[in-house]
């Protein structure tokens, strides 16, 4: 591979392995050095030949797989046209990837952190968990799902955080597994909504990292704000180019693909559209 590889050009990769996480979620493992080196929170543009091209967070491959040098992964929830095409791929099939794109979750001086993820929003949090583990940061992760059979990454989270103090909390909306309710309900219990002081010593957490449905992230942001907790949230917007030229991913004056995807509480506080509206494929604003 040339050293000065152009990350914007599509690289053809071959699917090595597919892991069934839930009936509607699969993880696709493939080899690609650049993807394997993605930072927590970064995403790829994934080309499904003659199908679609979708932004997808970079997942960590199972560390127990031998021969996983240069491996990276995608975890897909089967949803509409593109994600279903991807979901139906098999080992040996070809995909194209470009990137990784976007900024990264920052750890900084944080010592105790909370991760709140819903659905495939857990993907970038897994990459973050791996890094938190090697930095020995106390980590609590809340995994939100609708129901028991849709829970995934619980084992993965425990495994990725094995070398550091950690807690994995699962919530299901129907209470069929773990705590009953939304991930944000569990978060509210942890941060004792509003009563926590902005003093490092007393605070249970130094920072909250979140990725998932925007309305969930908005709730995480509100809870954190009332507890004076810093937040890093990875936003999703409709993406075409991934490199900051098409404008389809804009929120306010930000281009999520290039300026984001990760924004802190200060930035989020100025985003009038956060949690309220997004732009559709034509560029019209639509309320959530």
């Amino acid at each position, binding site marked *: 591979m040339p050293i000065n590889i152009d990350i914007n050009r599509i690289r053809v990769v071959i699917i090595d392995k597919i892991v069934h996480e839930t009936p509607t979620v699969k993880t696709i493992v493939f080899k690609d050095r650049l993807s394997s080196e993605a930072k927590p929170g970064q995403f790829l543009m994934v080309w499904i030949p*003659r199908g679609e091209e979708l932004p997808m967070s970079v997942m960590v491959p199972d560390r127990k797989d031998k021969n996983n040098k240069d491996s990276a992964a995608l975890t897909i929830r089967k949803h509409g046209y593109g994600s279903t095409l991807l979901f139906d791929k098999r080992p040996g099939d070809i995909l194209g990837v470009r990137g990784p794109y976007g900024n990264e979750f920052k750890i900084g001086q944080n010592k105790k952190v909370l991760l709140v993820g819903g659905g495939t929003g857990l993907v970038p949090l897994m990459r973050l968990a791996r890094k938190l583990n090697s930095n020995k940061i106390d980590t609590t992760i809340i995994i939100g799902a609708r129901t028991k059979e849709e829970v995934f990454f619980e084992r993965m989270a425990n495994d990725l955080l094995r070398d550091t103090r950690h807690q994995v909390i699962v919530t299901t909306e129907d209470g069929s597994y773990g705590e009953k309710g939304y991930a944000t309900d569990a978060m509210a219990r942890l941060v004792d909504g509003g009563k926590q002081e902005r003093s490092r010593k007393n605070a249970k957490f130094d920072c909250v990292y979140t990725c998932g449905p925007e309305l969930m992230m908005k709730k995480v942001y509100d809870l954190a704000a009332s507890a004076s907790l810093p937040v890093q949230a990875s936003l999703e917007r409709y993406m075409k180019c991934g490199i900051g030229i098409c*404008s389809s991913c804009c929120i306010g004056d930000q281009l999520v693909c290039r300026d984001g995807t990760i924004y802190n509480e200060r930035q989020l506080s100025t985003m009038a559209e956060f949690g309220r509206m997004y732009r559709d494929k034509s*560029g019209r604003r639509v309320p959530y």
Partner: protein
Amino acid sequence: MAKSKANSKAGRTTNERTVQPDDPALAVTVAGLHLRNPTMLASGILGISQDIFARLYRAGAGAIVSKSISIEPIEGYRNPTIVSLGSNSYLNAVGLANPGAEAFSKEIAPSRGIPIIVSLVGSSDKEFPPMVQKFDALGNVIGYEVNLSCPHVAKMGMEVGDDPEMVSRIVKAIKAGTRKPVIIKVGIGAADVVKIAKVAKESGADAITAINTIRAMTINIETGMPVLSNRIGGLSGAAIKPAAVRCVYEISKAGIPVIGCGGITTWEDAVEFILAGASAVQIGSAIGNRWIDVFAEIGAGIKKYLERKGMKNVMEISGLAHKY
């Protein structure tokens, strides 16, 4: 090269410079419009959000050309719609995705002092006047650019722009509905670009923008498949620069005011277009490689060049190449 500076700076959201005071050496007049500098945002690049326009203006753009707006909203083609070909060149078939005249006129209604040129697209002369009506009262809309050269949407853009009669009808229809300048955007299609420019001018257009993307394609060899969902798209960026410079030179030589566009990545490129006869330049693809700092960088580069050459204003170098 392609690893954007912005990408590697999490937390800081941008690294564009703060706005510089306007420099009189860079002020230009084109199509009767007075712009603080000759760098304009090209249509279709970051072109649908007023907030982004404000940011680009802060970053140094002299004017903003919006995404091409049609009478009804268009969803555009399925992804992939934009493919990087390396060497600062891109292929796109976005399919003229845009929010439509109604939504877009609302988007830009709250004037924020940003000079906006609304790009319009349509399949016949009938479609333009109602759009113009939606925008013409807005004070920040300083003029119109008419996209008669998108090379990959059936019955719009180039298919219209190749037909001199239709071009003439469209120009006249728009001019009848506005006193603001009307700029016609041409490209390399199946008609002589200079001829179309002349027809546009004679029909009342105030200036020409040259050029749009060039009809092109890329096939992934491992799969044998065209990459763009639309298969065929438009080539932009460095690859088209020499063809664009030629069009600007020839149109300008015909005595028609031109705005140069196509592959402008550095200040040297901008100067080359201006020497060829452009009164202003538009920047599109370069944003992908150099980010939005590109406006300030090009402005600063032109300014230094003018100083070195002992020129007081950029308009003095416009068309110099025709002397030789």
